[in-house]
């Protein structure tokens, strides 16, 4: 057998999207008479080529609508390419979805046989592994219940248990990792690690999880607008993928208007910015320190002022509260403009944040300025730790 498992050569694909609901005879006749096409042609893939070697764990990443699922369906021979070709050496089982052919009116047992048949198992082959499937899914007591009485978690477990029995040389997986609870995720991980080691198996994985790409894949491609824009090591491809988001979020954020009008306080904020790498931005790169700079204007001078900021996350939790009291000295404010800047060590998690800013006369206790959520910014990047970690300080483990 050749060492190339899947060879994709210059594949093009476009879809005809009907302009309105067009699957009736009447609209076909009307469109024909008016010389209308009745559909718009959308190019989904524009010349995609790559080879997947036997034993590869190959990742395909891209944004929604980039054409990666279409590509997967073409590899799986569900769609046919318009131009170009796909050559597959060996048996291939696609998992566009777990539990294909599951029917809620059938029992768990019947569904296993139906699903198995679709994955290419014979009745006796399923008989042989039936016990394993049920055990793995932990559903011994439920196999004679109708599937409609299963919880969604049980359904997924059953489907996955059948799926991992697939004996094909090539497995094609679309986002199947994205479901299930933590225990199920662990099972998925174990399964993937096992086939990653098995060099006779080839896996093609489409996913949004850069974490999965880094952990399992040995090669990956990034698809944007139907073309491969990056291919090679999973690390390179995963960061290229994250870069797309950083850039896009940046463009989005820059459009939003900066400081709000603050006429009702004695002091006004003229401008507020977050500066990272000497450039003002609303998109902060993960784990890179940044500076908040605030230009204020005061109609009079004050002998003793306090400036304070909060950084609040999207859930409203105060992640950071700090003020000029930390300086342990009195701050005088002259009439006219002044600038305040705060250097911050960036240990924050990815996400959306707001800044509250306030100033107070420390002597008279007069509130000089107060504005909650005066500024909004995002932190974006390749977060390695789990999403539940609110902060990301440097950590060094040692186990002896």
């Amino acid at each position, binding site marked *: 057998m050749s060492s190339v498992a899947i060879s994709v050569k210059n594949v093009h694909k476009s879809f005809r999207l009907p302009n309105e609901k067009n699957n009736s005879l009447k609209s076909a006749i009307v469109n024909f008479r008016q010389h209308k096409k009745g559909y718009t042609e959308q190019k989904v893939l524009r010349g995609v080529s790559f080879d997947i070697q036997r034993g590869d764990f190959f990742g395909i990443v891209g944004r929604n609508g980039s054409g990666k699922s279409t590509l997967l369906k073409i590899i*799986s021979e569900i769609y*046919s390419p318009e131009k170009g070709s796909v050559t597959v050496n060996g048996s291939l089982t696609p998992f566009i979805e777990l539990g294909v052919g599951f029917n809620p009116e059938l029992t768990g047992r*019947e569904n296993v046989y139906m699903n198995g*048949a*679709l994955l290419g198992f014979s009745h006796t082959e399923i008989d042989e592994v039936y016990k394993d499937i049920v055990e793995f899914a932990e559903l011994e007591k439920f196999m004679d219940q109708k599937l409609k009485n299963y919880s969604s978690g049980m359904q997924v477990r059953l489907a996955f248990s059948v799926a991992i029995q697939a004996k094909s040389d090539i497995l094609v997986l679309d986002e199947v990792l994205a479901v299930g609870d933590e225990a199920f995720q662990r099972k998925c991980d174990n399964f993937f690690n096992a086939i990653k080691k098995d060099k006779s198996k080839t896996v093609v994985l489409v996913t949004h999880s850069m974490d999965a790409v880094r952990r399992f894949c040995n090669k990956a491609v990034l698809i944007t607008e139907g073309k491969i824009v990056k291919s090679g090591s999973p690390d390179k491809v995963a960061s290229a993928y994250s870069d797309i988001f950083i850039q896009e979020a940046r463009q989005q954020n820059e459009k939003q208007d900066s400081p709000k009008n603050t006429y009702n306080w004695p002091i006004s904020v003229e401008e507020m910015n977050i500066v990272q790498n000497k450039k003002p931005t609303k998109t902060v790169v993960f784990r890179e320190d940044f500076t908040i700079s605030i230009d204020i204007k005061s109609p009079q001078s004050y002998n003793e002022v306090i400036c304070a900021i909060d950084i609040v996350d999207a859930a409203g939790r105060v992640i950071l509260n700090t003020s000029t009291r930390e300086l342990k000295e009195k701050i005088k404010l002259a009439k006219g403009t002044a600038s305040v800047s705060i250097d911050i060590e960036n240990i924050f998690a990815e996400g959306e944040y707001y800044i509250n800013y306030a100033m107070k006369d420390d002597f008279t206790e007069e509130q000089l300025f107060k504005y909650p959520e005066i500024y909004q910014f995002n932190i974006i990047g390749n977060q390695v730790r789990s999403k539940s970690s609110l902060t990301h300080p440097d950590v060094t483990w040692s186990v002896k």
Partner: protein
Amino acid sequence: MKTSNIFSKRNRVLLRELVITDFKLRYQGSVLGYAWSLLKPLFLFAIMYVVFVHFLRFGAGIPHFAAALLLGIIMWTFFIEVVSQGMQSIVGRGDLLRKIKFPKYIIVLSTSISGLINLGLNLLVVAVILIIDGVSLNAAALLFPITLLVLYVFSLSLAFLFSAVYVKYRDLSPIWEIVSQALFYATPIIYPLQMVIERAGEMAAKLIMLNPIAVLTQEARSQLIGSEVAVTASQLSSNIIYLTIPYAIIIGVGILAIWYFRKRSAKFAEEI
């Protein structure tokens, strides 16, 4: 692309599972379950019998007309079941087609096999009626399975053709409902062909007998119940061209169906 055939192990297994699933799901949640497959044509027969034979005196003077009526209804039910369910089958299984690669014809074939199972059960009822009615079989009955086979091929061809057309044009469903209704009355099922000859002339009867379903129904009746119960095409005319037309239609539809289904099937997954 690899060519797949019906005899490959995987396709056989798949066909079997689809038929079993169909079978299990069809009367899901009904008390009498599969008995309905028998009861439906029997009740239809009872209604037709009371209205047309008892009150309107259709087929008076024709021996065993009741048995002929039943056989006709059962063959018609089979034809409609295979064609109508076959037509819906590809669209109905769209979820599978979009997610996994397998030969599309298996879907149409599986619904037709459900039809065949029902036909088999219903023929048992016909057999009982024939015995009660005192019909004695002769050598011509040996041809009956061939007639059924031709009927099956014709029904299946239409099922393939319609299933592919239906993916693109859902209008086909109401159109077929109307056309099949008209076809039912244009076929000598509830009335004997002798009646057409008596009242409308031989020409009308000849026209009716261009319809393959009419030809097959009359052949089956003649083979199983006796030549006096049903006038066959060869009794109307000995013109070889005339006699060939219905079979030419069957072959023509078959070729058209294979060509069109093969041409369209690669795109089913995208178009459903």
